[in-house]
């Protein structure tokens, strides 16, 4: 957590410096620019900072990809290919060029939207990602919604009734979230709620007879089915999502509740909370207005990181629930030395992290007057 928090703050810091440099002339006395112009400069700084971070991400993924002791040519032609075929493939893949040239070519192709072709699926990596990422997005979003809607109130409640039975129970739930392995919870969940009680659907995104009935528009079945007006499919998808999303939700709930509780305990011992009590403010308002509002900023960091973690795709959960998500895709690609797919998926995950960091950044400024 501490590390992740550091990373997030580092990114926030970076964006500020870039924005500062860009915005400096506007602040110098004598320059009287309009508010709109300043906003534009700020926006430009923001975009530049995103681009720089993204370029750094590209460089790291690319060089890690080149440093891994895997021969991408062998992955394509197989180890029994004649020398001439091997050489031809190597030339075609541009691997005879010096590494810096390869990097520039790679950046150029990524910028033009070409992530290469996957060796294992034989399709364009971009198309693969368009298929697998929405599946993960759908599950992770539902998971984080469950985590936030239950975790935050649980944490607040536990902190306000510190030491009570409810507090103890919430703390145990929090500990379970850390201690229970995802695959175990997934399997037990399937055994109980699917096999025994039949409350939820089994693995997969849809029942087999619904498969392929609707055109993927967003790739998110819940949305696509509604767009197509197929409520049957919508509820079937929801039925399938319920268990894996709940399992993911449980893990983020445990983490969010734990963090919320400790943030709130810290807040409740602050002087301004006492000030509010001195004023005669009701306990409910003391908790939600005076103690909870200031923790929104750290809480957003926690929720953001938790969501980003879920969007990386949980390999365990995706495997157990046969979920065609990005975690699964990345693992299969790695095992097959399918470097284009690995780089592509890593890029998407990195971009998600950058995106969530930037959104948190903006939210900080909205929520904390000291950060404006």
């Amino acid at each position, binding site marked *: 957590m501490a590390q992740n928090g550091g990373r997030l703050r580092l990114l926030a810091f970076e964006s500020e410096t870039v924005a500062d440099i860009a915005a400096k002339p506007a602040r110098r006395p004598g320059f009287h620019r309009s508010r709109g112009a300043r906003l534009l400069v700020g926006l430009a700084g923001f975009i530049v900072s995103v681009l720089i971070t993204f370029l750094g991400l590209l460089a790291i993924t690319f060089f890690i990809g080149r440093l891994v002791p895997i021969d991408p040519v062998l992955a394509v032609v197989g180890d029994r290919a004649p020398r001439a075929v091997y050489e031809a493939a190597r030339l075609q893949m541009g691997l005879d060029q010096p590494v810096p040239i390869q990097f520039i070519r790679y950046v150029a192709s990524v910028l033009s939207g070409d992530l290469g072709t996957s060796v294992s699926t034989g399709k364009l990596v971009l198309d693969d990602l368009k298929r697998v990422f929405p599946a993960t997005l759908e599950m992770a979003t539902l998971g984080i919604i469950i985590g936030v809607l239950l975790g935050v109130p649980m944490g607040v409640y536990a902190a306000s009734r510190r030491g009570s039975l409810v507090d103890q129970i919430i703390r145990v739930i929090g500990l379970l979230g850390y201690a229970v392995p995802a695959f175990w919870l997934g399997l037990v969940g399937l055994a109980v709620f699917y096999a025994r009680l039949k409350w939820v659907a089994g693995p997969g995104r849809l029942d087999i007879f619904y498969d392929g009935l609707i055109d993927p528009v967003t790739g998110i079945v819940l949305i696509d089915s509604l767009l197509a007006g197929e409520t049957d499919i919508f509820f079937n998808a929801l039925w399938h999502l319920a268990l894996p999303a709940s399992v993911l939700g449980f893990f983020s709930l445990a983490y969010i509740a734990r963090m919320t509780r400790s943030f709130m305990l810290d807040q409740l011992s602050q002087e301004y909370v006492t*000030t*509010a009590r001195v004023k005669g*403010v009701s306990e409910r308002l003391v908790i939600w207005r005076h103690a909870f509002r*200031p923790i929104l900023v750290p809480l957003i960091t926690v929720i953001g990181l938790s969501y980003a973690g879920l969007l990386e795709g949980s390999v365990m959960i995706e495997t157990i629930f046969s979920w065609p998500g990005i975690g699964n895709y990345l693992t299969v690609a790695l095992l097959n030395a399918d470097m284009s797919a690995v780089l592509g998926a890593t890029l998407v995950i990195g971009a998600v992290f950058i995106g969530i960091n930037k959104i948190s950044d903006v939210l900080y400024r909205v929520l904390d007057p000291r950060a404006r």
Partner: protein
Amino acid sequence: MSAPLLEIENLRVSFPTQKGIIDVVRGVSFTLGRERLGIVGESGSGKSMTGRAILKLIRAPGTIRADTFRFDGIDLLKQTEKAMRRIRGARISMVMQDPKFSLNPVMTVGEQIAEALQTHQRLSRRETQKRVLTMLEAVRIDDPERVAGLYPHEISGGMGQRVMIAMMLIPEPDLLIADEPTSALDVSVQAQVLDIIDEQVRRKGMGLIFISHDLNLVSSYCDRILVMNTGEIVEECQAGELRNAVHPYTRGLIAAIPRLDETRDELPVLDRSAWVAK
């Protein structure tokens, strides 16, 4: 003095610890009219705990006990938490020590002052706004409309403390407890803040309990002084008669105050054996 506003007899505040129950206030008794009472003492003498006990803001597991604990005829010990909330702010209020920590960082000054008023009175938005601005003016804030829209980190410490005073006085309480209201401020603004408290207290005829560790300050702003040490009142006297104090602790404190015209090379150190042995 009129009928007593506050009657306290044998007040005890205790906290359970691993070594057993510790009394931080041990049998404090005093009565207070609409006057200015100073409580002085060193850190840990129980003066702040006495102040918080009057508002019943001692958090569990701390407990408050007393033989008599009456405010304006109301037995505070018998009041429920809900009834106490109607007394807090509206009838007894408290100015806290450091505005850096005691003002909510994410609410504007105006919102916080308005909240103190709205908690106890139903007023229209415009009326509230007007009262807040008038109150800010009363604590000598020049540009109240601008200041009301600022956040606590945007104002100075002295201004913050004046905002605090405004917030605590806007519901027009009968008793104001000022818990080290100037300890966190520069000497240059201390006098101003105290003058404002003094002016408001006099004008509205409130009772004031001024808690401080500064003997000089207390003797110049209060009518009567209580000196506390290790949870007990060791000395009670009129402000003007502080020089005639009899308890060795008070005498020691007075002796340790430096004077401008003195020629002592070294200030005496408190000799605790004089009273602790008793």
